[in-house]
């Protein structure tokens, strides 16, 4: 396991922690945008090793958490349609909507199936030609290209019973929206690794330039994250605000050309609702006209009543980094992983779930 061991080397980690401590002269707030980073930081106990002057905030980087309640309600309504199979990535099944969840609908008889890729959902459609199969297209730029490929394949093969609900979100507009809101005081972004493989680090230049915020694209191992924190502190000390890549073994500045071309062929940007952030212009993806017929909303009316999050649920504030789970009145008291009130407690990459699981 050479490729992992070197990024978990305690001696290397110790040296980086010493360097971070030596550079920590004043309070610094850094936000990790990606849920996988949040979990990795908690799992490796990084918070317990950093000087108290460094605060790590978790941002809107969990695709399950940022899915708006109205979108969850649409998924639930879809599951209630006759002869319909709903295919979804795992964590979504547990997210509460206004009054139910996909998991509860499944217990009530809805045909909800957890898949590992869009192509698995496409296979379900091939094997069940008399039924409508819908894939819940949730996620960031990481998963969108494979969904685009499945959509292209569906059209090419003439599969008539496969659809998606486009509910994708794209990350850079959300980072800008966080900063434009003005309530968030942060000194640097730990930028997502998986997303950046697709979009490239150049995508964060507008954030760095316009808001003078240092951005470093990070890998997911403890040494990656510690090195990223050190790189951000170095920029802050030098008064710089540039985009750097720590995760060089996977990410470049321009991204994956082929994946981006595929995305552009199948999807176009649109305004999208984010939990906690409201509607952000050009932060979602919808099917282009050429593929629009594969959007299930051209077949079913999935309009849902006006939705409301559970009173007291702070998931929105937590996603914006203005609260931590410890500030939420529901956290641990009534909102727990087995009885979640909001998505941050549901998703394995949710901030509340990470606090609950790893925080003393």
């Amino acid at each position: 396991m050479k490729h992992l061991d070197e990024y978990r080397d305690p001696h290397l980690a110790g040296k980086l922690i010493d360097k971070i401590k030596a550079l920590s002269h004043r309070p610094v707030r850094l936000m990790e945008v990606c849920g996988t980073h949040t979990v990795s930081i908690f799992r490796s106990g990084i918070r317990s090793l950093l000087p108290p002057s460094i605060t790590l905030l978790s941002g809107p980087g969990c695709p399950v958490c940022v899915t708006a309640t109205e979108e969850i309600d649409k998924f639930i309504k879809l599951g209630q349609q006759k002869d319909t199979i709903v295919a979804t990535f795992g964590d979504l099944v547990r997210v509460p909507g206004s009054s139910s969840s996909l998991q509860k609908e499944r217990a009530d008889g809805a045909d909800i199936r957890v898949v590992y890729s869009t192509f698995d959902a496409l296979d379900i459609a091939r094997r069940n030609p008399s039924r409508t199969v819908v894939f819940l297209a949730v996620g960031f730029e990481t998963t969108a290209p494979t969904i685009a490929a499945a959509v292209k394949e569906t059209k090419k093969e003439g599969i008539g019973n496969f659809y998606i609900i486009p509910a994708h979100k794209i990350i850079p507009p959300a980072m800008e929206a966080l900063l434009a809101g003005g309530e968030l005081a942060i000194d640097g972004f730990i930028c997502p690794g998986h997303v950046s493989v697709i979009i490239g680090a150049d995508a964060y230049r507008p954030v760095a330039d316009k808001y003078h915020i240092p951005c470093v694209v990070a890998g997911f191992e403890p040494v990656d994250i510690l090195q990223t924190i050190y790189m951000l502190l170095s920029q802050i000390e030098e008064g710089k605000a540039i985009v750097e890549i720590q995760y060089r073994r996977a990410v470049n500045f321009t991204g994956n050309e082929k994946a981006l071309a595929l995305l552009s062929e199948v999807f176009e940007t649109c305004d999208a609702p984010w939990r906690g952030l409201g509607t952000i212009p050009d932060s979602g993806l919808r099917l282009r006209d050429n593929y629009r017929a594969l959007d299930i909303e051209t077949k079913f009316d999935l309009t849902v009543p006006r939705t409301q999050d559970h009173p007291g649920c702070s998931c929105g504030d937590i996603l914006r980094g203005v609260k931590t789970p410890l500030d939420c009145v529901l956290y641990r008291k009534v909102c727990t992983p087995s009885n979640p009130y909001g998505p941050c407690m549901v998703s394995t990459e949710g901030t509340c779930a990470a606090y609950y699981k790893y925080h003393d």
Partner: protein
Amino acid sequence: MKHDRILLDHGSGGRASHELIASLFLPQFDNEFLREMNDSAVMTIGGTKLAFSTDSYVVDPIFFPGGDIGSLAIHGTVNDLAMRGARPLYLSVGFIIEEGLPMADLKAIAGSMKNAAAEAGVVIATGDTKVVPKGATDKVFINTAGIGIIDPDVNISGQNARPGDKIILSGTIADHGITILTCREGLRFDAPLKSDSAPLNTLVAEMLAASRKINVLRDPTRGGLGTSLNEIAGQSRVGIRVHEETIPVRPEVQAACELLGIDPLYLANEGKLIACAAAQDAEKLIDIMHKNPYGRDACIIGEVISDHPGKVFMKTIIGGNRIVDMLTGEPLPRIC
């Protein structure tokens, strides 16, 4: 949101399963045996100390690398008896078979059970067969129950962990859970993954012959090592501290877990045990275990502490500290 239906999470072996048992079954069936929440009940009949256990097997797929539902059903109950220090003797086997199951599959499963019982030295003494209409079950479900004898001076229970005890793990974790997960979803990896399903009664007998200072034995099946350690900490009202760098995970298992975003701490094991044993006997036990094929990778992964009763802590590879909680819900791959 309260649950008004049984959800898959209630069968995960993690927190939801525990809450279901504590809130629904225990109040109905309450007695001193169930209250202990151990792998087997221990009772004395006619002066003989017996362990009695049952478990049901609903694994999908029914054939997997390293075993099948039949051998798993034997190993599971043999191990549940062994985890009280018992010598397993007799098993019952109940089949619920879906109409249409190929006869060849059932024959293969029965053959596998025969071999597993022979290796464990147990007799399948009674059984039952039911066939249900297609769709009323999934291929075949198997229930096994078993009884075994415990030496009078052996007292092993999840409630017996004592501060100062060393935590011993018999080998690598997550082999069974990741194998089943990847088989079920048709995921393929370059390095072959294989279940660790195995009978542990011989290993336990050898450990008991070497030391009577074993306080707890537990096979970390559903819910994995993380959940089992929490169960022991809760039952014994002690704290537990483990050291991440000492917990063995096969490289191919680690790689599959990394790819899927799943923590190996919460994946099922079917041929591994955790022991809490007095510190002075721990090294001796490790030496004995290394001589048994099912304990050759045995190691000390931590210790029982008096602070923070009911909680499990981990010193991470890079020297950080964190809590290890129980599994919540089924382990699911990340989206991103």
